[in-house]
């Protein structure tokens, strides 16, 4: 059951990262002159989505051993 939960967490994180990448790519393609600003905002957003998954791993993964 824990494995399924961790997989679901990874799925959600993947969807979130994909959405961020999608939005940033589209913005960069439409406005190439704003690439620097978009990259900064994109990296910050990526960091926060990633952190949620890392927290899930730290809470959930120790339960996998037992």
């Amino acid at each position, binding site marked *: 059951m824990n494995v399924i939960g961790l997989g679901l967490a990874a799925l959600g994180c993947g969807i979130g990262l994909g959405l961020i990448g999608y939005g940033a790519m589209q913005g960069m393609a439409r406005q190439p002159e704003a690439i*620097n*600003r978009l990259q*900064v*905002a994109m*990296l*910050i*957003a*990526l*960091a*926060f989505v*990633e*952190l949620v998954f*890392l*927290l899930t*791993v*730290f809470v959930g993964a120790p339960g996998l*051993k037992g």
Partner: protein
Amino acid sequence: MFAAAEGEAERTVEVGFLGTAVYIVVVLALLFLLLSFAKKGLNTRVFKNYWTSRFEQLYLFIEGMCVNVIGAHGRRYVPMIITFWLVIFFGNVVALFAPFSPTASLSFNLGLALTSIAYVQWEGMKANGIIGHFSHFAGPKLGGLMALVISPVIFCIEVVSELMKNVSLSLRLYGNIHGGHEAVEKMNALGHSIYVPFGEFLLPIKLLTVVVQAMIFTLLTCVYLSLVTAHHSEDDHHHETDSPHGAEGVAVPA
């Protein structure tokens, strides 16, 4: 690296405090070696030394990031930011090739995050004064009864959020670097029966992580600095609406 494949299921690298100190010394020695190469090429005209020009590129990159995120007064914080960048970057580079590294230990990362947040608070106090900095926590100025009811609540939430910044900064770095090591060991165990170290195919992704994690740590430090020193720039009272800098518009939780 191949420890996980020796029959027992879970075995991560445990080095203890002394081992961590040894790895920190390795990272710092690497850093001082390269910086001493770079220092030899310093002059007042053109940098022709290889390492000097590389570090100059790095300096320009970090300076551009600071000025982009913090604003025109961001140049003041470049020394601290570039120190964070170099320590984290070289720690991550060591993590690429060694089974352990300072940035793969939670204690070292927590120390880095505590230093970073303490520096942010210090700069906030220097920019706004001690009273101004702590009243900044209490949110917007409210009048009458609302000031008594709402402001203490906002103050408590802001203090908790400042403390959680330490946790988030350190856990992010630790999770990425340590998680990379774990993934490599698991994939090595996968190919153990046919003697193929599958984990080494993760090296390109880890190479990306090295730069991105160093950048994210320093970028977030810059964003926190821009939040606490926002009063300092020319617009004095309406810094939260229509700010000219790109990253200040990004919502920053925890």
